[in-house]
């Protein structure tokens, strides 16, 4: 079970690197978050910790529904149906993604952290997710994709938070969700303004501030 979830998450992350159109990213993201919610549910099922259930629910609502919705809306509004632009070629990015995953697993393995009862395999995956998320941001030139990369990173965080530490204290989780939401909203707002100012979302246009 755990292995499956971990694998799905990884695949979804790498998939985000391989998309053709920006709009494709939204469903993948939703799927990823859904898997995350699933995982949380599973954790709840195993540990019977009530707040894990809440977390799962929140994940489902906020991450798998609201945030994708916002992103979808933004993309529609700015209508960037064009192909994504990458720094590296498709295959290079794939290669790097693989390397990063290996790195993530290696790093966590050599930390020889004391294993916990559940979700031990999730730790390397989550760290890898963070790496991949950052790589998504680095690789894609469209401003919006960086938002998506960010959300991938946060998903990685959640994975750890939910699985290994059985979720954070309630209040903190709420706060985090709230932040996520606001972040996405502000990313939306800013990408609107950027698009209206630069007539494009290509962040390579935004490199006037040097030195």
């Amino acid at each position, binding site marked *: 079970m755990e292995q499956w979830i971990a694998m799905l998450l990884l695949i979804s992350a790498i998939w985000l690197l391989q998309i053709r159109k920006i709009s494709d990213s939204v469903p993948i993201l939703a799927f990823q978050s859904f898997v995350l919610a699933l995982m949380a549910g599973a954790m709840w099922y195993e540990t019977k910790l009530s707040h894990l259930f809440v977390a799962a629910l929140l994940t489902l609502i906020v991450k798998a529904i609201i945030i994708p919705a916002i992103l979808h809306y933004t993309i529609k509004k700015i209508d960037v149906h064009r192909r994504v632009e990458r720094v590296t070629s498709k295959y290079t990015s794939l290669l790097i993604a693989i390397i990063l995953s290996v790195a993530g697993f290696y790093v966590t393995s050599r930390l020889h952290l004391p294993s916990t009862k559940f979700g031990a395999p999730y730790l390397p995956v989550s760290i890898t997710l963070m790496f991949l998320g950052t790589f998504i941001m*680095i690789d894609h030139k469209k401003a919006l994709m*960086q938002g998506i990369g960010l959300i991938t990173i946060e998903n990685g965080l959640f994975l750890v938070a939910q699985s290994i530490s059985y979720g954070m204290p309630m209040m903190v989780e709420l706060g985090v969700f709230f932040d996520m939401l606001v972040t996405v909203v502000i990313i939306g707002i800013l990408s609107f303004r950027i698009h209206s100012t630069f007539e494009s979302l290509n*962040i390579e246009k935004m490199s006037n*501030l040097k*030195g």
Partner: protein
Amino acid sequence: MADFETRLFVLSLLFFVFGTFSALCFSRRDKWANIFAHSSALVGGLLGTVAASLVLATKQPISVTAWTIVSDVTLRFKVDTLSAYFLFVISVLAVAVSVYSIGYVTEYYGKKPIGWLGGGLNLFLLSMVAVITVDHSVSFLIAWEFMSLLSFFLVMFEHEKPETRKAGYVYVVMTHFGTVFIILSFLTLFFFTNRLDFQSFTQAASDLPASVKNIIFLTSLIGFGTKAGMIPLHVWLPRAHPAAPSHISALMSAVMIKTAIYGLLRVNYDFLKGGATWWGAVVLGIGVLSAVLGILFGVAENDMKRFLAFSSAENIGIIFMGLGASLLFRSYHEPLLGALALTALLYHVLNHAIFKGLLFMGAGSVLYATHTKNINELGGLIRRMPWTAVLFLIGGMSLAAFPPLNGFMSEWATFQSLLHLSFSLHSPIWKTVGGLAAATLGLTGAFVAGSVVKHFGTAFLALPRTSHAAKANEVPLAMRFGMVVLAGGTVVFGVWPGLVLRMTNQIVENYFHQSLTGHAMLYVPFHRSVESISLGWMTIIFLAILLLLIALLRVSVGKSNNHYDETWNCGTPLVPTMEYTGTSYSHPVLMIFKRLYGIERKIDVQGEYAYYPKRIRHRLKIEAIIETKLYRPLIRGTVWLSQRLRAIQNGNLQSYLAYMIITLIVLLLWIR
């Protein structure tokens, strides 16, 4: 008794403070600002002089605690004999300069903020007094940098001129670099003594391991040497001093650079108390270098104040020679000779302060009257401004160490200490070095004489070259008086060394338990012979012979009746353009020492026959090798490097993110 001196000292400080604030209050009213600022500076100076002489007379140190800065850093003023001596020098100059300024600043009325200038002067004096009297390294550093900062602002006073801004920048950066080295030496002392006040340095520092002492010595030498303007760290000096208003240049050149000497004495004599032999050798070497190169660069100058600045570097060199000699003698346990050398350098500190102050004031007066410092635009001033001429001449003669003026006395003492390196030390190296060093001192003396002739001759004698010079008028009374005070000093301290010895002995005895005797005569009893000099007697004989000669001529052939006629100029009437200019005057020297100046000489003759040219243009481009070969590459290299390094901030968000993630991964791989 001591508390009386304490009161005087505190009062003088308060007067400086009062001068600052009153000047700033009256910054709207130039006249009042001028009067308040400089009169209070004058009073402060007088009080300081009295306090200093009392301390030197009674040997009772003044000690005043002001307040606590942070936890264990207190601001305490402690005037022991060494401080008192420098306090005396500063105060004397303060008196003369403040009188002079009353006249000098009138030039700025309506044009520039007098209040700030006067206030700055007072604060500057205050900071200098603080530098030489505080006894905690942190408060010393604060006072030190405060002094540098104020002098920087005062240099920047005429900041409309671009070269002034450049000078100010160079100055402030170099002095800051110097301060860093001073900080290093103090921190090193702190590292071993675990205290920061001079008291514990004095107690603990002397029994440090030799290597540590060497570090401290070197760092302090570089640090203080920068401020003193020793070559090759002098580059700020010939820029900053001419840029400042003349009375400020007088203070900077006469007194401020001496605070560095004070620092060196403190570190070497109070804290370290003896070290390796090579210390003395290094200092002596730097001294010789500074003296010779300083004056050689100075010879080429046609700007009065720039020349004076270079000659300051040269005199610092002479002082360093004395210091080096005394360090050597100390390491060879020759107390009497050490005493002689230390006396020589202290004496020269006072003398240089006096005549360099006088000369800068003189240059200032010329500037005031003609609005130019370039001697090639002057001439014939001796008739327009007789007072200034005579006073400048006296200063110049003292600078060139001519008897019977004070400059000679200290140079004589320096000569003696250098020669007795070779006479009394038994190592063949020192025997050779001593003679050579003395010879170089002679060399510098001759060059100084030459440059003085050049500057006085070109600026004050013969025909005026421009209308500025032709229409010049004698400067106001206050300025003349300020100069007269110092001119008197040059004579008195020349013919009556006893006055100075009485002060220096107090210091010298602390370190060598020996002292020199003398009233009208400086008398050094060596084991092999007795060296002595008496300018007082010499002067008397000189005058006697003079009177005799005149009398004889009168009685034998009567008064000489003079006719006046045009100068012989191959039959053509003499016009100013035919006179020897400063440039042409120093030309032989430049030709002899070509290598040092990196001279680019261009002569282009126009006209069909080379022998009957229509126009000849002669351009002489001179640049000191130190700047071209040492500093410029350094600066260019730094800038080039930083321009390369700036590439990391390429404005691209993705690369920034890459930096982040890489940092993270590396750290994760790093930790165990």
